[in-house]
């Protein structure tokens, strides 16, 4: 049997297809404005990669903030639960998950594969990937490079502002004072790590700590976060897909519980897809 998880995040959409044995394929691509069409396209792409057809998928779980826009999904589950499940599957000993996404940042407390507590950042972009995006734009650098660059500094600049807009102004001020880009970036990453740490501390950070999401791909951020936490953290080899992975695991569980009328369910899914094909 085959199960799919689709995670439509604010910046990246991820798909995982698995069977009873394990993960078959995973894909990730930028989320555009049109979630519905995208959902359809990414799943098609993943299916192609796996050499499967849509009919062969037994159960689909959608998650992420665009989850309500996946009409062919059999169930929708919050990304908090999905991340928790995905990470627990990869790291059975996990106790704290820190997910740093494009628009939000979450801390999730896990015990024995069950969620105990969670926390999410507020409406403000200050503790999220968005903060780094704005800063890399301001500095004219690529987002994927700034983490590495920050690691070259041995004298992080003092950055006191946590508000994204204020920090942007502070960056410009530091530049005008002649502070190097490395030091500024180091200071910013440190400030961001401090903010995330402080938020996640509300649910008590305990071993093992796993960092996921786009933020986990930023080596500078991970280093400063590790410093604040005070012990080593774990990072999945593909930190972007843990939500989609969790969704596919849940899809498998839910499929096992769904006994009757499976055929009917598949029919409905096909219709939904056809409908979107026509719209194309």
């Amino acid at each position, binding site marked *: 049997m085959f199960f799919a998880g689709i995670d439509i995040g604010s910046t990246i959409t991820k798909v995982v297809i698995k069977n009873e044995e394990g993960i078959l394929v995973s894909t990730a691509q930028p989320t555009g404005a049109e979630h519905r069409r995208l959902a359809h396209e990414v799943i098609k792409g993943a299916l192609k990669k796996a050499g499967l057809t849509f009919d062969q998928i037994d159960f689909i779980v959608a998650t992420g903030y665009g989850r309500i826009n996946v009409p062919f999904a059999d169930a929708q589950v919050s990304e908090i639960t999905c991340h928790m499940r995905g990470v627990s599957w990869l790291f059975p000993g996990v106790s704290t998950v820190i997910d740093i996404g494009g628009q939000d940042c979450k801390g999730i407390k896990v015990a024995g594969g069950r969620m105990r507590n969670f926390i999410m950042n507020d409406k403000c972009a200050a503790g999220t990937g968005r903060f780094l995006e704005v800063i890399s734009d301001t500095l004219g650098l690529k987002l994927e490079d700034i983490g590495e660059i920050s690691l070259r500094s041995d004298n992080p600049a003092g950055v*006191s502002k*946590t*508000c994204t807009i*204020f920090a942007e*102004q502070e960056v410009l001020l530091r530049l005008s*004072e002649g502070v190097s880009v490395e030091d500024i970036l180091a200071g910013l990453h440190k400030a961001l790590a*401090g903010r995330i740490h*402080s938020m996640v*501390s509300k649910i008590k950070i305990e071993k093992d700590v796993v960092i996921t999401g786009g933020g986990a791909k930023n080596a500078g951020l991970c280093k400063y976060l590790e410093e604040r936490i005070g012990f080593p953290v774990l990072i999945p080899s593909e930190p972007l897909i843990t939500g989609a992975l969790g969704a596919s695991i849940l899809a498998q569980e839910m499929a096992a519980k769904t006994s009757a009328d499976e055929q009917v369910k598949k029919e409905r899914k096909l219709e939904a897809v056809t409908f979107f094909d026509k719209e194309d």
Partner: protein
Amino acid sequence: MEEKKKKKSSAKTLQTAREAGYFGKKMLAGTRQAYEEGKPVAWSMVDWWMGSTITKAMGIELCYPENYGAFCASVRKAEPNLDYAESDGVPNTICGYARNCIGYTRKLKENNFIIPEDSPSGGMPKPLFLLACGAVCDARYKWFQSLGRYMEVPVWTLEFPQTGVNEYFMGDNKKDNIKFMVQELREFIAFLENLLGKKMDWDNLSGKLDTFFKTHELAHKVDLLRKSVPSPAVCTDFWSIMIPHLYMPEDPEALDFYQRVYDEVKYKVDNKIGAIPNEKYRMLFGELPPWHTLGIFDEFAEKYGVAFAFESWNYHVPSPLPDDERYGINDPLELIARYSYHKFNEHAQVAREQCMEPTLFTAPYMKFVKDYKADGLFCHPLISCRPATYTLMHVRNLLMEKFKVPSVVVEGDIVDLRVFNEEEAHSKMEAFIETMDHYREVRKKEGFEW
């Protein structure tokens, strides 16, 4: 690069203001010493109605977490405490002083009530009880109540009546309020006697009250001298010299100190020596300052010739109690109640004349603006202190409507420097200078005195 680095603290203009830090240190050291010697120590809110004087008369040493918060902010050591409080689930929107104290207390508890070594200014020792206060804001009793999770000590809330302007003038309301205050003070003394297992020393109290009133009277005289043009002292001076009158007015050293402040200010007035070299604009400041960046006022003075002639209503002593309220009052508690009530309501008449509310934080500015010939108001809405912020826009509207005095608004915080944008403050101030020029003309045309 070094020379570009801005000075964050203020140089202050009065010699006495530069010396006032002594009192903050004395207060903290005094409590730590008492604690070492096994004597009772308590933490108190600035109570404005002399609950702290009563407490001291019972032989208890006090320190003030609000002052400690301002101190930690001024040396830029508050952030770790704020973080530590927030990570225990306290919203980052609550009072900066409170978060600093909650974070500090949490650390204190985790260190078995031995003051952590890195505590700014030596830290505050574990208290026997917490003296909360119902005046001014909810934080000042909720915050102490919330410390229960770190230390099992009783909290006493000294309640303060808070009446409206019309209500102040109704029937026997004032009498009822004062009667209530006296009753609450008696309850408080009973609490202290029970806690310490000893009786109130009334003679000691009346001696302390005597010094208290003398200190306050001098502080008030200094306030009056500050009406002079040019300003003999500015806001950054006041925020230093206020420490003794807010926290230890019953200390003979505070009284001596105020005599020297008075002499210094008087000398400057008599010789027309301004606090800043070239005073061009006189401003008011409302209400609580950015403790972490007081140096900015020196920069405003230097760049634009702005003297902050008066500020922070709530930190100032009231005018002396009128004779008819003082006459024939033999009960010290009634005297305390009357004086404290006077502090909060002495501007009720001004409020009534101006058809506005409230008396606290608002009506006084209707008077200050004339008395101190203000060209503008600097509004500092605080991200974490609502009580000192709620009425700022209201004051701003009223000053414009009634006196054609403009305001500049710069958001920030008392403790949390993470939310204060210095660059923004500078650019706003630059633009505001023109606004003040314009309204000077307007006031002139409309026949205002300044």
